[in-house]
């Protein structure tokens, strides 16, 4: 854990500049067992200090790979020099965002470090279990990955605090041979926010999830190609989460709105059926901790939920302090940086479509000819709201019943068109939190959603 050695350097903050000083450490632990072979066994720590200084709508940033009072003084000076240099080339200048109420956000939790030996033992134990229980796998891999952020933030005119964000996962990947001799695969991420001991002292708790994964891979060995075209589908909760993040979330990031995103002209308008409400949760969902809680962002904004779509109407964007001022909205703590050397960007936190009132069984029973798309491999979207998700696991639906498994495919659509076709929403939400979102920097994000019946383009032979 970082010791706060940078607070005295806040005395170097200068009047007339909006300044944020950040001490920051990222830790990573990684173990990979590929078919029983240990192919990665590494630990890393990257620690440093950064300063961002704003003046007249221009920003200077500097970071040093050193965590010391001297480094803090050095980056404050360099960041100020940068903004003054920029001022000589600036074509436009704008007022800085107004000051926010200042308070200190308390430390949310400690980070506990597990010895590499325990990580390897747990990974090995899970690998042994998979190898012994499922001898017909063509290949298997176990990947332990742990990353954490430990940040101390001081803002000249906003909140300060010391916050941590640890998370750790074991990915179980299984490959089997399909009927045509080609390999098919699936993976499952086990774990979540927290440290090793929060998740991996009792591995047996994961055996049912591993069995479920195995059954799905086995189904896939008899898989068929989806029929390409515009289809009625039931999106599983993980797909719903991907939809919340990729298809809608990115278009309502205010920097992308300024870049011409489809959300710009649609604020206050209907963009989805009235069954759809989408919120970027800060740290609490339904009275419990959100998958990846964020309490304070890297501009010193205390985190709150951002309501993006309410009953189908686009109600707001995700902002940093500057875009919030520009759009007349309240900053909610979405300006996040991944490493000490990164400047804060507008990022999602825990983006989720709220549940409805139907059961999954009712959704499936209501489809005569379509697909149940269970799990996604990845996704992308752009300014127009056109998105695609890779579908790693799915089944055909015939006459209201599940049929054969699907081979890997892709779905696509235009978010604000596709969301208007949502006509049934399930009553439970499924979350995922193991992923990174890429946008100049990586950042951990949580995403969640219910199952939804809708129409979507699906790729296939």
């Amino acid at each position: 854990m970082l010791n706060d050695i940078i607070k005295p350097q806040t005395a170097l903050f200068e009047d007339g500049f909006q300044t944020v000083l950040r001490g920051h450490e990222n830790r990573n632990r990684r173990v990979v067992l590929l078919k029983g072979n240990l192919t990665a066994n590494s630990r890393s720590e990257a620690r440093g200090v950064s300063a961002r200084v704003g003046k007249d709508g221009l920003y200077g940033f500097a970071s040093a790979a050193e965590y010391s009072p001297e480094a803090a003084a050095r980056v404050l000076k360099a960041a100020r020099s940068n903004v003054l240099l920029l001022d000589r080339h600036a074509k436009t200048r704008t007022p800085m965002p107004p000051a926010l109420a200042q308070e200190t956000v308390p430390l949310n939790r400690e980070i506990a470090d597990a010895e590499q030996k325990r990580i390897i033992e747990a990974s090995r134990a899970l690998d042994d279990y998979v190898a012994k229980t499922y001898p017909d796998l063509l290949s298997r891999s176990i990947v332990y990955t742990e990353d954490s952020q430990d940040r101390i933030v001081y803002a000249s005119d906003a909140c300060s605090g010391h916050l941590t964000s640890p998370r750790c996962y074991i990915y179980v990947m299984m490959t089997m041979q399909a009927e045509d001799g080609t390999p098919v695969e699936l993976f499952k991420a086990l774990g979540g926010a927290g440290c090793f001991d929060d998740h991996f002292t009792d591995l047996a708790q994961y055996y049912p999830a591993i069995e479920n994964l195995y059954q799905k891979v086995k189904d896939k060995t008899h898989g068929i190609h989806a029929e390409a075209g515009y289809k009625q589908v039931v999106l599983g909760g993980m797909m719903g989460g991907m939809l919340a993040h990729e298809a809608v979330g990115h278009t309502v990031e205010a920097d992308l709105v300024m870049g011409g995103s489809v959300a710009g002209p649609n604020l206050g308008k209907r963009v989805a059926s009235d069954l759809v409400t989408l919120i970027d949760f800060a740290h609490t969902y339904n009275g419990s901790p959100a998958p990846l809680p964020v309490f304070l962002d890297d501009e010193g904004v205390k985190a709150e939920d951002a309501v993006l779509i309410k009953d189908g109407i686009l109600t707001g964007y995700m902002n940093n302090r500057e875009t919030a001022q520009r759009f007349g909205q309240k900053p909610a703590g979405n300006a996040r940086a991944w490493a000490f050397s990164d400047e804060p960007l507008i990022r999602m936190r825990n983006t989720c479509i709220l549940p409805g009132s139907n059961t999954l069984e009712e959704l499936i029973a209501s489809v005569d000819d379509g697909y149940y798309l269970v799990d996604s491999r990845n996704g992308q979207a752009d300014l127009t709201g056109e998105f695609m998700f890779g579908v790693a696991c799915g089944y055909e639906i015939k006459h209201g019943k599940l049929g054969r498994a699907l081979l890997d495919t892709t779905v696509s659509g235009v978010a604000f068109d596709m969301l208007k076709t949502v006509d049934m929403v399930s009553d439970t939400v499924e979350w995922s939190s193991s992923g990174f979102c890429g946008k100049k920097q990586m950042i951990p994000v949580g995403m969640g959603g219910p199952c939804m019946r809708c129409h979507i383009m699906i790729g296939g032979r």
Partner: protein
Amino acid sequence: MSELKQKADFLENLLKERAVEKYAFSLRESEKQELNTEGDTFKLMRTVFGGGAGVTVYQAGRKGSASGNDLSEEGLAALTESALAAAESAPEDPAHDIAPDQGKHAFTQGAVEADFDRFFDRLEEMQTDIAAEYPSVHVMEMVADHTAGRTIYRNSNGTCAESVSGWYDVTVEFSAGDGEKNTGLEYAFQRLDSLDGKLIDLGDFRRKFEAIQRQIDPAPLSGKFEGTAVFTPGCLLDFIGMTLDNYAGGGVILDGTSQWLDKVGEKVADERITIGFDPFDPRIVCGERLTGDGYLSEPVNVIENGVLKAHMLGLYAANKTGRPVLKNDGSDLIMKPGAESLETILAGIEKGLLIGGFSGGHPGANGEFSGVAKNSFLIEHGRVTRAVTETMINGNLGEMLQHVRGISKETDDSGLFSLPYLAVDGIVISGK
């Protein structure tokens, strides 16, 4: 003696004192100056004083690695202990090793000293050029930086290499619009080591700005057909990466799931296909000089005239499978261009798609891919007729390389790769 060399000496002595049987380490210091624009305004200037160290130790066939950025003596000592602790708990596996002694080397590449005033001027000139020549293009953000660094690598077999390098990177994120309609996002990237020419004339900038202007009013495609896909160089980069990863990468050879497992020496692609890595190609800026295993990097072809020449194996995977190691980590991708112009290739296509980008799931081990064709145009009767949206493509990576219709003589030389346009038949193209 430079401070970094002193730190390297300290770390090496430490590893010897701890009686580490085998080791490899690298130390790096760097400085990046980065400019970010928002629209046509320089918005953020960023300075990153960077540095780091990575240590890998091998004790009794057990391997452990640790990395960090605390280069103080205490930090390097802690890093060494962390690597040793990782090794101690690892299982014994004699396949873990480092390359034999490659000698002592000093490399200097690129623009080590930044000419930042001139860089500023070039960037402002580029903004002016875009506004004047491509009025519909809206630059959302330009990220331009100069990075310079020094790296010292040493291992217990005697290899010692010091590398000093510097380069400029320019990334432009842009769309196009006519006041009412906007396109999706497009990106263009260039790495360079000289500021002698106009930035807009480099690499793929002009082609991408021209293409996005014609994307403002795309229409969905109706129905489904099997046709010819022409991949632009930037899009081809993704497909070659996926193909090599899926069929020739260390992971799929090690676990035996590659469909090219026993195909070295056999034809896996059209005879016009030659794909390799050449860190010494003059079009590459600051190419790889040393692999992660400690080999001096060499130019290699993975596929040569359609024949699979090698798998992309690091030393561990090579030792584990008894196959040869590839003395290149897969940087500096070069694909041999063809003899025909893009125009000639397009003229011979009855129906197909010119694909500017691909947004799709990573293909499974069987190579089947499907995804959205981004920034793409319909080809009909030998002509590029209109921009399309909501169009999906499906195919198989392995089959794609065998169904080549043409390879262009034009290439995109980004400083990181050199790739032509590739036209392949048998791609399923589907609309709404």
